[in-house]
């Protein structure tokens, strides 16, 4: 356990820029945009003469509507964090077992009494738990700072921030759902993560090329076979990989839900295999599906191959 923690620490130190600086930069951008909005709003020539009038207008709206809009807005703040997190994890895994082979520091790591299984576990856990957790914490902190900044402005303009927005939009529920969707996504994405870590273990150079080319070729092949069968492109344009992406349990878009309300959605609401409304049940629906089971089997195959390769990484 101590060793695993040490290895996780190593991953964090090595990838501090990606894991910590990146979400902080996003957070900074959010706060900057917020500040710029508050400062310049008064100068805009639009239907509200001032921020005060806008707040007055909002305060007069139906509480239920404000609650729903705020709920959706709170959740959508996470989308930028999630998107960047996706890229960070992608490139982190792609380099995870490649960089130390490249600079030969693998010879140092292998001189320590930590097994290859533990090493791979530390990389996978960094991608599945550590990185999402850091992004989530910074997302929540950003959200809190935004709420505080807005509260101050609202109070200065003579409105009550509590009744206006603080008591609405269920921030705690939103935060929990976002965290849960991050971890669900970590599991849902395991076949991809397994593939990336496998590529990083075998690619002799340019791991990105090795990672992207086979799936693209498979995708095109699938599209072509489909086309031969139906002579139309409309049916299954997204293919297997597209469906996997669209069915993701990560909050990434918006949709009209079954009750007629428009709100945030899991994945992209272009497929009908799963309900896209953001609920715990819908996330679990994906995690306990046959698709997930197949995904786990594929991930297990990739990870075993990775272990086999890592054991022989110092052969020549």
């Amino acid at each position, binding site marked *: 356990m*101590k*060793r695993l*923690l*040490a*290895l996780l*620490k*190593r991953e964090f*130190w*090595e990838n501090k820029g990606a894991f910590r600086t990146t979400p902080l930069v996003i957070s900074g951008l959010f706060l900057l945009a917020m500040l710029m909005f508050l400062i310049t709003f008064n100068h805009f020539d639009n239907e509200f003469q001032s921020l005060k009038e806008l707040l007055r207008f909002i305060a007069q709206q139906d509480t239920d509507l404000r609650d729903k809009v705020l709920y959706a807005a709170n959740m959508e703040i996470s989308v930028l964090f999630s998107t960047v997190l996706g890229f960070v994890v992608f490139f982190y895994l792609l380099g995870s077992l490649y960089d*130390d082979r490249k*600079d*030969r*520091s*693998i*010879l*140092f*790591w*292998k*001189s*320590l*009494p*930590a*097994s*290859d299984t*533990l090493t791979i576990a530390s990389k996978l856990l960094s991608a599945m738990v550590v990185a999402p957790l850091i992004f989530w914490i910074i997302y929540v902190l950003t959200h809190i700072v935004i709420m505080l900044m807005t509260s101050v402005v609202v109070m200065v303009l003579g409105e009550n921030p509590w009744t206006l927005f603080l008591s609405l939009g269920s921030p705690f529920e939103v935060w929990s759902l976002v965290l849960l969707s991050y971890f669900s996504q970590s599991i849902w994405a395991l076949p991809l993560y397994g593939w990336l870590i496998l590529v990083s273990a075998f690619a002799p150079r340019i791991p990105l090329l090795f990672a992207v080319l086979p799936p693209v070729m498979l995708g095109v092949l699938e599209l072509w076979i489909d086309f031969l069968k139906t002579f139309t492109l409309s049916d299954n344009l997204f293919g297997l990989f597209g469906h996997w992406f669209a069915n993701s349990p990560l909050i990434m878009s918006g949709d009209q839900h079954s009750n007629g309300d428009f709100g945030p959605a899991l994945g992209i609401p272009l497929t009908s295999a799963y309900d896209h409304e953001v609920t715990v049940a819908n996330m679990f629906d994906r995690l306990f599906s046959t698709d997930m089971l197949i995904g786990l089997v594929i991930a297990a195959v990739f990870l075993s191959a990775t272990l086999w390769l890592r054991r*022989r990484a*110092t*052969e*020549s």
Partner: protein
Amino acid sequence: MNNVIEARGLTKRYRKTIAVDNIDLEIPAGRIVGLIGPNGAGKTSALKAILGLATYEGHLSVLGKSPAKDRAALMEDVCFIADVAVLPRWIRVWQVIELTEDIHPKFSREKCLQYLAKTKVTLDHRVKQLSKGMVAQLHLAIVMSIDVKLLVLDEPTLGLDILFRKEFYTNLLNDYFDEQRTILITTHQVEEIEHILSDLIFIQDGRIALSSTMDDVQQNYIELMVTPDNAPAARELGPMTERELFGRHIFLFDCANRAQLKELGEVRTPSVADLFVAIMNGGES
């Protein structure tokens, strides 16, 4: 006493070539063994097998464990420096110390800091900011602070200047080595390590050409330097090699009568380098 390394029929094949060819090896505890061989002789392949970094055929046991199966467990009692400058470039000195402390149960931070205090390496340095020599000092400081039974050094001083190289081996001998420990070294700079070795193994084309203690080497091999007049007489005694230097003839003998040789000229113990050349060339002819 049990052998630290025991190999029987150790073989390492690459796709077409055989790097290590059916080697038998026994290295007891408390020795400093020099593994010497020309480039491509199979030294590194043999070391990789011993360290669990490569697959192999045959029987191999290091400290009673199988390197292929138990690398992680083995590394609690074995440490190695494979090549210079393999410390990760991004890491800071304090980080590498903390990681080693967390992962290695037999690491002493105190000792490591003592060793480092004698160098210009500071805790806040990143490895990439250090010179090659300083990286070697850092790596050696870490390795010497780990209480292991076997230390393997594969060309640990390659590319370092002579001051660093001298200091490296002095530190190793004075501060680290004792009867419980075994050190296995490969290097091309034989002259620098021959005075610290207790055992010598020559390896050529994946086979062991010589395996002997330094005491035996000094007993058995005699270098004779004679004037041209005495050269034919010396030649009669069946030397391994003959060479000429400044008009003198130098012969190398294996198991010859020392008294008899003394009558012909000046008798010395050959250097490991000369012995190496003699045995390697002998193997070819």
